[in-house]
């Protein structure tokens, strides 16, 4: 079974790691509730760190 979500144009900035795996034709194993992306309309995109450049402290 599959769920497909379609967002309107320019509505969401999908997380970079998910996009880059997909560009390599690789699916990403995720769980319910993991971050998917941020609204482009909220104007708060810059507030959150990019998942890929996130470092553990």
């Amino acid at each position, binding site marked *: *079974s*599959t*769920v*497909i*979500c*379609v*967002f*309107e*144009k320019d*509505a*969401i900035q*999908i*997380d970079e*790691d*998910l*996009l880059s*795996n*997909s*560009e*390599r*034709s*690789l*699916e*990403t*194993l*995720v*769980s*319910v*509730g*993991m*971050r*998917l*992306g*941020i*609204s482009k*309309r*909220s104007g*708060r995109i810059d507030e*959150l760190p990019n998942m*890929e*450049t*996130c*470092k*553990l*402290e």
Partner: protein
Amino acid sequence: GHGSSRADASDDSSGDGHARHHHSRFSRFRRRFRSNRHDHGSDPPLVKNLAADDFAGIARIEIISAEMQFKDRWFACLSLGERTYRTETSDHTEKPIWRSEKKLVLEKDGPTIARISVIETNRLSKNNLVGYCEINLLEVLSQESENNIEELSLLDPSSSSTTVGSISILCYVEDPIETEKFFARRILSVVDLNGDGKLSYSEFAELINAFGNQVAAIKTEDLFKQADKNGDGVVDLDELATLIAVQQENEPLINNCPVCGESLGKLDKLNDMIHMTLCFDEGTGNQVMTGGFLTDKEASYGWIFKLSEWAHVSSYDIGLRSGSSASHILVVDRRTKGLVEEIIDGKIVLSMRAIYQSKVGLTLINTGVKDLLQNISEKQGKRMNSHESAKDIPKFIEFFIGQLKMDEAKYPIEYFKTFNEFFIRELKPGARPIAYPERDDIAVCAADCRLMAFNSANESLRFWIKGRKFSIQGLLGKDTCSSAFVDGSLVIFRLAPQDYHRFHVPVSGTIESFVDIPGYLYTVNPIAVNSKYCNVFTENKRVVSIISTSEFGKVAFVAIGATMVGSITFTKNEGDYVHKGDEFGYFSFGG
């Protein structure tokens, strides 16, 4: 012949004065693993905290031994990111000893969670994963400790709360400068043709030529004099190693990797050194642990082991191995950044390829198989709702061992009276934390699944969906689709049989509508999605729901049925306000 990394690692017991001296210098820079009762090393550790910013270099991990609960022949696999390595197979014992070491590159922002799997093997049955553990290298290598051996519990793949044995490992990070010297010493030993531990001028000149640096070749004599401190006309390896380490610091001597010939200096010094160290080890077969595998499952296939013992597999070639090589699917685990192999029964793969990836197969579908799929699914639905079906639950859990964790389920196995009840099992409250629950501008994943995400339908067609007739309008239907959706982003959540089968809302908002679109029940497996002859997303039975949100505008949520699992149930109604992460419905067996 220049020794092996295993021999290097055990220099401390060689009794050779030279080696002992080297080992002493080398081990002073080890960052020790966290405390344990064992004490493997004899040198007092000089411990430096490893900051996250500095987390790049080479980690040395040695898998020493394990204590299992029964006798068998065992091997272990070590996975980090997209690479997996395996030890040799032990004797028939419950206490296997491997003493296998592997160097791993730790990159800034790269994977940090290493997984060790212990697999039983014998002539009568296939290899079985018995236990595993995970180590956050960033965490353990940054801790100060006196000792360097760790004993870790091995967990049951089907229940992370059950221990099935223990494993001892040694883990530390090499200091980059020491690694550079260490590498220089090893490569210099290659040109020490008479093996006297010293290089004559002609041997030295040969080495400089091999480095491919024209400037250095002109200055060979000067460099030699610089290294030959006592002026006796020969230079010992320590002197040369120091020279090269110092020289690399100022004006790099080495332009090309002497092993593979690749030109260096494109990135930075550290990367060059890492490249050469690993190239040298891999290229000469010096590492005790063999590599080149993508997952621990792949490493356990004997025939792949023979074929690809030293093969490098480009990460860009992976993913679905389509066409004639489609036998398994690889996915990236977002949490560990490692690759996981999805289990599909071999017979199913063959039949799916026959049906979905050939014109003949699709012609068959057009001449009645569509109805057949519907009938099979309805029949299967009835069967899975019978009490008789409950006896299939333990076998199902066994087949997906390691990928289905019953300790997360709200109820134990005995609670489920039918297979379908088990299939739509709920999870314990809090089993799936919701990211940023207070922020509606952040969307979350809608299912436990394998996810693909694209900024546009065109990108999805380029990288994943190969059905020639796919379009957003075809997916949503004319009544629901708008021009904003046509150019919008697309996220595909594919649930595998072993997954938790309830889906959740990815965004907060009001449910505007549900539209049923009748259709067939093709499989939604990537083998079909990747077939140009098949248009599963636009021809399968599905329900399109529109959620109206303040942060994302309208979001279309399409639940698509598939072969056998064709029943779609929603647990929310039109007009309901939903919070992201709320349960939205489930898929179950049936037509």
